[in-house]
């Protein structure tokens, strides 16, 4: 990788972090409604993965989607405007935090029914296979999602049809308040892929370089026609499941311990110790991200509400 690329990855991670940190008070002030699931702590996962994709590769994820949107190239302005429900939001204010997509950027959404987007991802991959493109679909989901039937149906089909799909389980240790081993008979989640004869491995999701390298290698394999692959990425969410989580299910010590493995801190250390970038350069990027978020909030706040007529648009294509 060239230096600019390293810096870009660092910038994306910091930008996601700042956008979400800014969202917290906006939520508390009531400017953001509904559910708000933060990605803080998991930034290395989607940043590493998506940075390894080619433009023809599709990305689809669950409701914890702000970071994924930004990694796919959606601007902080449009993410923030969607959070505020504005007409300028990436989904025109009709989707909210959990439902962001940008088809132009091959980002097929944020999906809020746990696991339901896995069959859809199989279909996206089928589309590429049918049309004989070399695109790969990257489908991200949580550890909790591996317990719903859709997961099993979709993995099975992907193997039966040899679909070009990379299944990515972001194992952040909990589905809401339920620890993996309290919900999954197989606590070593990648074994579930083994059950469908899908090649698989576990990667450290706090280290972006490891995620990136694994993704590059695996995407190339899938592109070469080797069929589906399953990545379990070990990670942790530093915040609650969503805003207002009482967090009775985990100890503060545990959170602290993981926070010491902050993916941004780890990457920062890597960049400086490998002499890829100086601390001053990285500080500059931190400042740039803070400025961009400030501008995004301004953009979102100044944006218009959707017009009442929008209520009845986009129900059907053919009227």
């Amino acid at each position, binding site marked *: 990788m060239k230096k600019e690329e390293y810096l870009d990855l660092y910038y994306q991670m910091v930008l996601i972090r700042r956008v979400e940190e800014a969202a917290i008070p906006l939520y508390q002030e009531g400017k953001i409604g509904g559910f708000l699931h933060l990605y803080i702590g998991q930034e290395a996962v989607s940043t590493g993965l998506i940075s390894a994709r080619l433009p023809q590769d599709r990305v689809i994820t669950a409701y914890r989607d702000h970071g994924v949107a930004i990694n796919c190239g959606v601007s902080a302005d449009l993410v923030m405007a969607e959070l505020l429900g504005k007409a300028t*939001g*990436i*989904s*025109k*204010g*009709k*989707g909210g935090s959990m*439902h*962001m*997509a*940008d*088809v132009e950027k091959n980002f*097929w*959404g944020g*999906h809020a*029914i746990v696991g*339901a987007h*896995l*069959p*859809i*991802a*199989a*279909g*996206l*991959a*089928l*589309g*590429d296979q*049918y*049309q004989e493109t070399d695109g790969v679909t990257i489908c991200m989901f949580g550890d909790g999602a591996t317990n719903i*039937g*859709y997961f099993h*149906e*979709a993995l*099975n*089909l992907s193997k*039966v*049809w040899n679909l070009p799909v990379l299944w990515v389980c972001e194992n952040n240790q909990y589905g809401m308040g339920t620890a993996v081993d309290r919900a999954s008979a197989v606590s070593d989640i990648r074994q579930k892929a083994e059950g469908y004869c899908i090649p698989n491995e576990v990667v450290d999701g706090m280290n972006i370089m490891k995620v990136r390298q694994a993704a590059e290698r695996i995407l190339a394999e899938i592109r070469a026609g080797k069929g589906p692959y399953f990545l379990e990425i070990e990670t942790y969410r530093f915040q609650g499941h969503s805003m207002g989580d009482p967090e009775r299910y985990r100890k503060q010590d545990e959170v602290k311990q993981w926070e010491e493995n902050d993916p941004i801190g780890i990457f920062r250390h890597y960049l400086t110790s490998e002499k890829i970038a100086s601390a001053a350069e990285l500080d500059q990027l931190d400042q740039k991200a803070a400025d961009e978020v400030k501008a995004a909030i301004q953009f979102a706040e100044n944006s218009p509400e959707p017009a009442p007529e929008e209520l009845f*648009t*986009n*129900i*059907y*294509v*053919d009227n």
Partner: protein
Amino acid sequence: MTRITMREAISQAMWEEMERDPDVFILGEEVGVWGGSYAVTKGFYDHFGEKRVRDTPISESTIVGAAIGSALTGLRPIAEIMTINFAFSAMDHIVNQAAKLHYMFGGQLILPLVIRTVGGGGRQLGATHSQTPDAIFAHFPGLKVVAPGTPEDAKGLLKSAIRSNDPIFFIEHATLYQTRAEVPDGDYITPIGKSKVHREGRDVTIVTYSKMLETSSKAAEQLSGMGIEAEIIDLRTLRPLDMEPVLESFRKTNRAVIVEEGWRSYGVGAEVTARIYEEAFDYVDAPIQRVAQKEVPLPYNRTLEQLALPQVEDVVQAVKEVL
């Protein structure tokens, strides 16, 4: 015009559209090698090959989900759900995904998708395999629900559905597949979202669709023998519901009977009746009658099953009530 069965009409619609557009393909359980569990896709696998006629595992959610995903990439999948009773296993993908993705992402996602399935009672298959839950699917904005009652409409509506850019839930009726009628030759399409006057009459308006079109037509014949001329409106599409021909007819006859095979509670009859009262109250000369399935899980025993299903005599009786 050529006389063909409903099965042939549906089969021809898909065959012609697959010949016309290489992006159209079929996926579902037993659609390929077997030839379709109702033989609707017989011969397709040999002609179009396994890429375009895809046998799936028994995974209803994923049949619909994969159809959605591939539709998003620009393909035009026809997903077959073996019977409507199994569509409940795919309910999330039908009502939470297909019906909502276009709207929820501000119009960015486009799903040119057909879900074909077959419902209806009367074949002694017991309660889990005999349902007519059409109204449930028609409840959701974002989905279009089509249920033809004649071979001509089945062919024209299915071709429209395949060419449409919206998700269409297409409900066939298991006991109509052998129904034979004239169908126009060559390529034609029938617009979705348009009800139709199926039989003209001056005395009473019967509103119905699918299998009950046949039942209602038989009732109309009997009534005609008694000097009563019923006008029959075939809804054809349950969502979006086209009330215009219904209201026009009702303003003429001032009396209506709504006939559906599904249960009465919260059903098609409830919806159509309410709309007539809302939009043509001044024209009401008698309380509107509904004919529907008895409120029981459909039993296996032939006599009991027929007791539960709406019969020609029930329609005749209901018409007499409103006159």
